[in-house]
C-alpha cells in the first residue's frame, strides 16, 4: 500500500494536512474542560448521519408524514433507535452547547483575539435552536402541530411585521402542507448548510488563534493534540454516545396521535429547551407579550453576541470578573427556574395503549360481522385492525353508520344501522389503531362500555374521549352514588325538574342499567 500512499501524497499532500490536523499545538495544562467542543462536533455528526438515514423513510407531506414516522418506529431495521438517537441527540446538543458556552465564559476564552470565534459560536447556538424548532413539526403529530401553532402565533405578536412574518413561516394563511414543506426544507437544506459554513468558520478561527488554554498559564512546552488530548476527547465522546444510545434503546421517542386541528382538548407544550421561553410568556399577558417574545430574548442574544466587547482587558480569572460571572450564573439560574416551573405543569404524553372507554366500545362495535363481510383478508377492504383511516371523522362516522354511503348527509341512514354514538366510538378506535395501539387485552365491564359508547358518549366524555356537551363522567362516582345515578339515568327530570338530559329508563334493559350504574359509581 505504501507506494500508493506515496503517490497520493505526492499529488494531494494529504500527509501534511493530516499532520496539521492532528498535531495542533495545545498550550501546556490543557485539560478535560477543553473536550466540550469536540463533543459538540461529534453529536452534530450523529444528527447529520441519523438525519440522512431518517430522510430515506420520511415523507414531508401532511398526508403521509405521520404514517412515515410511525413506519420508521415500527418497521425500519433499527428505525426506533435511529429516531431515538436523532430525537434525544437534539437535547444532548442543547446541553453540550450550553456547557461549552459556560466553559468559554468561565475561562474568558472569548477575549482578544477570539471575539469573532465567539460570535460565530453564538450564531451556531441560534442555528442549533433553529434545528430544534423546525425538526419539531416534522412528525406531524398533535404535539408538533400545536407547538408550531404557538410558535407561529408568537411571531405574529411581533409589532409591525408580525402578520407578514407569520405568513412567511406558515407559507399560506393556515398551518398545513405548505408549512410542513418549508420547515422541512429549512431543517434539511438551509440550516445544515448554515451549520456547516459556521462550524468550518468556527474551527478555522479556533485553529488560527489556537485554543485559549488554562486560565493561569502553565510553564512548559506545547503538546500536540494527538494522541494525549485526543484520548480525553474520545473518552468523553464514548461515554456520551453510550448514554445517548442507552436512552435511544430504552426510551421510545414520543409520537402522539396524528395532528388534529379540530381538537380543542390538546394542551400544547414545547420541548424542554424552549419551556423557559414558554413559561416567560405567562408573566407578560396581553399587550405586554412582545416583551417576553421579542425584547427579552433579543436582549439576551444581543448581550451574548457582544459579550467580548463588554468584558475587555486581559484578566481571565473568574474571581476578578465578578460582573460577567454574576450575570452568567444569574441568567443560568433564571433559565433553570423558568424551565422547572414550565416542566411542573407539562401534561404527560398520551399513550395510545391507555384505552379510554369510548375507543374500547369502538373496538367492540368494529368487531362485528357487519364490518367483517368486507373488512377481511383478501376481502374488498382491509381488515379493520390494519386499516389506516385517513378520512375525516365525519366521513368515517357516516361510513360506519351506513357503509354504502360514500358522501355523508346525502340520504338518511338505513334502519338497523349503528347509532351516531357507535359511529363516534368506532372512529375513536380507528384513531388508536393509527396511533399504533395494539388490540386491548380484554374489555372490562363490557356491557357498561357498550352502553356508554352507544348512548352516553354523544354528550359525555370519559378519560379524554367523547363529546363535551354535558359534564365529564371520568370521576362521577366521587360525587354521586349508584342509587342517585340509577334515578338520574332513569328519569333526570324526577331528580331535577329542569334537567336537559333525556330519560333512559325505557331504552336500557335491567342488565344494561345495572352495568352502567355500577361502572359509573366505581369511577371515583
Amino acid at each position, binding site marked *: 500500500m505504501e507506494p500508493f500512499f506515496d503517490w497520493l501524497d505526492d499529488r494531494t499532500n494529504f500527509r501534511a494536512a493530516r499532520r496539521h490536523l492532528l498535531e495542533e499545538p495545545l498550550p501546556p495544562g490543557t485539560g478535560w474542560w477543553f473536550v466540550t467542543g469536540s463533543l459538540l462536533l461529534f453529536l452534530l455528526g*450523529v444528527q447529520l*448521519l*441519523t438525519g440522512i*438515514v431518517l430522510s*430515506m*423513510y420520511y*415523507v414531508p407531506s401532511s398526508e*403521509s408524514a405521520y*404514517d*412515515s414516522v*410511525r*413506519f420508521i418506529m415500527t*418497521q*425500519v*431495521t*433499527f*428505525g426506533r*433507535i*435511529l429516531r431515538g*438517537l436523532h430525537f434525544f441527540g437534539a437535547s444532548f446538543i442543547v446541553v453540550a452547547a450550553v456547557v461549552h458556552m459556560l466553559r468559554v465564559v468561565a475561562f474568558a476564552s472569548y477575549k482578544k483575539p477570539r471575539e469573532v470565534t465567539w460570535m460565530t459560536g453564538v450564531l451556531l447556538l441560534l442555528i442549533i435552536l433553529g434545528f430544534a424548532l423546525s425538526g419539531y413539526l416534522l412528525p406531524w403529530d398533535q404535539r408538533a402541530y400545536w407547538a408550531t401553532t404557538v410558535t407561529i402565533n408568537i411571531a405574529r405578536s411581533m409589532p409591525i411585521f408580525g402578520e407578514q412574518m407569520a405568513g412567511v413561516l406558515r407559507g399560506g394563511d393556515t398551518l398545513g402542507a405548505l408549512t410542513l414543506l418549508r420547515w422541512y426544507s429549512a431543517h434539511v437544506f438551509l440550516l445544515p448548510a448554515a451549520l456547516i459554513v459556521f462550524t468550518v468558520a468556527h474551527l478555522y478561527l479556533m485553529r488560527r488563534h489556537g485554543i485559549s488554554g488554562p486560565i493561569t498559564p502553565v510553564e512548559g512546552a506545547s503538546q500536540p493534540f*494527538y*494522541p*494525549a488530548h*485526543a*484520548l480525553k476527547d*474520545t*473518552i468523553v*465522546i*464514548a461515554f456520551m*454516545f453510550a448514554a445517548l*444510545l442507552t436512552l435511544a434503546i430504552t426510551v421510545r421517542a414520543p409520537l402522539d396521535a396524528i395532528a388534529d386541528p379540530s381538537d380543542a382538548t390538546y394542551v400544547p407544550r414545547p420541548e424542554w429547551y424552549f419551556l423557559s421561553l414558554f413559561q416567560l410568556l405567562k408573566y407578560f399577558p396581553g399587550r405586554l407579550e412582545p416583551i417576553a417574545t421579542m425584547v427579552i430574548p433579543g436582549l439576551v442574544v444581543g448581550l451574548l453576541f457582544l459579550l467580548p466587547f463588554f468584558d475587555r482587558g486581559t484578566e481571565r480569572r473568574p474571581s476578578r470578573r465578578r460582573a460577567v460571572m454574576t450575570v452568567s450564573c444569574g441568567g443560568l439560574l433564571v433559565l433553570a427556574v423558568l424551565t422547572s416551573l414550565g416542566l411542573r405543569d407539562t401534561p404527560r404524553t398520551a399513550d395510545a395503549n391507555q384505552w379510554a372507554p369510548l375507543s374500547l366500545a369502538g373496538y367492540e362495535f368494529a368487531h362485528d360481522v357487519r364490518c367483517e363481510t368486507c373488512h377481511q*383478508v*383478501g376481502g*374488498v377492504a*382491509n381488515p379493520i385492525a*390494519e386499516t*389506516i383511516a385517513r378520512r375525516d371523522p365525519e366521513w368515517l362516522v357516516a361510513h360506519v353508520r351506513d357503509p354504502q354511503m360514500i358522501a355523508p348527509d346525502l340520504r338518511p341512514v338505513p334502519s338497523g344501522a349503528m347509532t351516531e354514538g357507535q359511529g363516534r366510538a368506532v372512529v375513536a378506535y380507528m384513531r388508536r389503531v393509527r396511533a399504533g395501539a395494539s388490540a386491548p387485552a380484554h374489555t372490562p365491564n363490557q356491557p357498561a362500555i357498550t352502553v356508554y359508547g352507544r348512548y352516553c358518549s354523544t354528550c359525555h366524555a370519559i378519560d379524554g374521549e367523547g363529546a363535551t356537551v354535558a359534564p365529564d363522567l371520568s370521576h362521577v362516582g366521587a360525587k354521586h352514588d349508584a342509587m342517585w345515578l340509577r334515578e338520574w339515568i332513569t328519569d333526570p327530570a324526577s331528580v331535577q325538574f329542569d334537567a336537559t338530559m333525556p330519560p333512559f329508563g325505557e331504552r336500557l334493559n335491567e342488565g344494561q342499567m345495572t352495568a352502567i350504574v355500577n361502572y359509573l359509581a366505581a369511577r371515583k
Partner: protein
Amino acid sequence: MIRKVTERRRFLAAAVNSIQGVVGGTLAVLLGGAVVGPSFLRRRETWLKAAPLDALTEDEPTPVTLRVRRQDGFTQTVERYVVFLVKSGERVTALSSTCTHLGCRVSWDSEAKQLKCPCHGGVYDRTGAVIAGPPPSPLATMTTRVDGDQVFIQA
C-alpha cells in the same frame, strides 16, 4: 527516555483509535442496518380466496383476478394480478400470468388451447410448460388449496 515517550504515544494512539473504532462501528451498524434492512424483508404470504371450484372448467385455464394487499413502505397498496387456475380431476394448479421471458402478461387462446404472450411470441401449454418462443422457463406456479368448494391461493 525517548523510547518511553514513543511507547506512551503509541499506547495512547491505540486507545484513541480503538475507542473511536467501537463508537464508529456501532453507528455504522445502526445506520447501515436501517439502510440495508428493508431490502431483505420477506413479505408475508396469506391464503386468498380465489374462486369457487364449480366455476372452473376441466383442463382449461380460467383467469382469476387476485387482490393482494401489500405494505408499500409506510403506505398500503392493493396489487391486482391475474392467475390462471387449471383444474385437472381433483387437483387445481395456479399458473402465474407473468411471462418468464420479459414479464409481459400472457392470455389464454381458447381455440389453440395455448397460453400466449403478446410481446415476443412466447407460447405455453395449459400446464405452463414452454412450447415455443423465447421464454427460458415454464410459467411460475403458486401453492393452492381446495377447502370445501373453494379454491385458495397462497400469495
